[in-house]
């Protein structure tokens, strides 16, 4: 007789953490009521990095697109916000959204070029394109050329009248963006697309052979990530109220840090960017004054993580404690309390090992 086998996606820990997460979200929504200016500013920065890192992780960790050029879309989003508000008088918050759409549209010709590169060459190719955008915006004198420009006072007033209100509005926009980005990524990964992505990352040929259209799938993800990154870029420039080509298209700020966050936190796991971002900000609070020492340390930290713990902290947690916050994996529940646990996104090697070692006999 065939026994009934159940498949469960969440675990007790992940359900518990979901409740904690909702509580935390409520707290974050209410933060402007009791938080001061500098805390709100810091939180927006954290939101920005969680969102950027999650998007980079979606590209590199799930789709196999290792980009060193995502700063292109941060910069495009920022400049779009400035151009839209200054030249067309569009309300800044609407412009954040439209800036995302514009960035996504730019991703179509950009993707057409960079998708000619395969694998590691894609990384440098995307970097070249980001440099082209940076050097081009340095020539646009209407937006300040190489030295950049500030957002005019009347537009700043348009966000909200008082400074405290402006801080709150920008804060909520940031929170909305990060929650939106995470929800979209989560839904993508839970859907058929998520399976297709993992298949592509693990073996392009095998994915193609089971009917995944690799090129279209990758392009769509690239397009979506570019749009979201553009909105984040618009938010960054709205928070800073200033834009310059070197800052808006900075490879260090918007890609190097993001890569370190994902690598250290755990690539190919949705928890990775969270853990990495929190660690990044803790380290920054203590060591940022050390300047280049801090960056040397980050670089070294990333190298060592990659060498001894290639799946990062999140991967280690999942392997060691079977802990997964976002219920993206599947576990099979056998009758009589026997349990085989394995994750959807593990490589065959580890899940094989897991299925033999993690059969609990209660």
């Amino acid at each position, binding site marked *: 007789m065939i026994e009934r086998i159940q498949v469960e996606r969440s675990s007790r820990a992940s359900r518990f953490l979901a409740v904690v997460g909702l509580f935390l979200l409520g707290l974050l929504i209410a933060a402007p009521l009791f938080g001061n200016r500098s805390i709100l500013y810091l939180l927006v920065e954290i939101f920005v990095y969680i969102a950027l890192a999650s998007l980079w992780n979606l590209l*590199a960790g799930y789709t196999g697109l*290792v980009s*060193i050029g995502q700063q292109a879309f941060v910069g495009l989003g920022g400049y779009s916000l400035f151009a839209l508000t200054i030249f067309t008088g569009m309300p800044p918050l609407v412009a954040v959204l439209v800036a995302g759409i514009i960035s996504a549209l730019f991703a179509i010709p950009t993707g*057409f*070029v960079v998708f*000619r590169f395969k*694998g*590691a*060459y894609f*990384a*440098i*190719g995307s*970097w*070249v*394109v980001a*440099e*082209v955008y940076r*050097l*081009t915006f*340095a*020539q646009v004198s209407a937006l300040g050329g*190489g030295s950049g420009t500030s957002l005019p006072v009347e537009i700043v007033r348009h966000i909200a009248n008082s400074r405290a209100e402006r801080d709150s509005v920008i804060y909520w926009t940031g929170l909305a963006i990060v929650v939106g980005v995470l929800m979209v990524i989560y839904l993508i990964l839970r859907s058929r697309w998520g399976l297709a992505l993992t298949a592509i990352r693990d073996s392009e040929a095998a994915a193609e052979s089971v009917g995944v259209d690799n090129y279209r799938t990758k392009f769509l993800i690239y397009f979506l990530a570019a749009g979201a990154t553009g909105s984040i870029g618009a938010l960054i420039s709205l928070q800073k109220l200033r834009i310059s080509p070197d800052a808006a298209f900075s*490879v*260090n700020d918007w890609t*190097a840090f993001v*890569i*370190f966050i994902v*690598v250290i936190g755990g*690539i190919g796991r949705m928890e990775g960017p969270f853990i990495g971002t929190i660690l990044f900000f803790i380290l920054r609070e203590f060591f940022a004054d050390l*300047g*280049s*020492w801090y*960056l*040397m340390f*980050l*670089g*070294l*930290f*990333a*190298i060592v993580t*990659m*060498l001894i713990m*290639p799946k990062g902290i999140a991967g280690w947690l999942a392997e060691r404690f079977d802990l997964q916050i976002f219920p993206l994996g599947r576990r099979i529940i056998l009758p009589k309390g026997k349990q085989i646990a394995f994750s959807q996104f593990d490589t065959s090697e580890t899940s094989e090992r897991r299925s033999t070692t993690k059969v609990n006999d209660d």
Partner: protein
Amino acid sequence: MDLAATLLDGVLLGGLYALFAAGLSLIFGVMRLVNIAHGDLILLSAFVALTVTTYFRIHPLFSLLLVVPLMAILGYALQRAVFNRTLGEDILPPLLVSFGLSVFLQNALLQIFRADSQRLHAGPLETWHIDLPFGITMGALPFLMFIVAVLVIGGLQLLLYRTALGRALRAVSDDGEIAQLMGINNAHLYGVAMAISLAVVSVAGVFLGIRANFDPSIGPTRLIFAFEAIIIGGLGDLWGTLAGGVILGVAQTLGGRINPGYQILAGHLVFLAILTVRPQGFFPRTR
């Protein structure tokens, strides 16, 4: 005639770009490693040369006697201790490790040498020039750079196609596992390849430092130039890489003639245009 002089400048500049690119191309060919830290390693050798020339008070070209072996040893050690652990089917580990190394090197140089512009002083070599017909003058230094690039690439070709080491390198490039079965020590050979790569890098670094001011932040752009020269030339062909460097150099000097702000942009745009029209480059060798 002004245009002819600009073109000549561009062609000679291409020699320097080919020097940037040759080492990167070699290690990609041998072990499919894209070394993001390549540009920062060029800068590192320029700074090592700076230290050597100021300490021993010798001409930068003489400093090569010390810089080349130092960088080669560093390359071998780096490969055996770090990069060899990352090689495999997955392209992510080598890419991310070399990216981490790039940021590490850049900031280490910044910490030691500060952000000031530096220069390797080569004395009269900087101002010597050769008079050509039609009133064109050719700087001795750019000419020397180009000749050295041709010699380095010719030397690498001889090494790859005329020596036992070269045969082993090509064997590993074709199929690492089979090569290992034939008694080749891949880990050691990868180390040797990286040592050769960094020996070429140090020549490039010294010429970079003599030709113009440099500071720790300009490494990534040199990586990009090297990459563009390789892709324009077509993967896997070293003479193609020289041609790619020349095309890039000419594009940049022509762009710079129109407007100094367009110099680097023009190079990137020509690169992207060529990529779009002819993705395999002009002289493709691999696959």
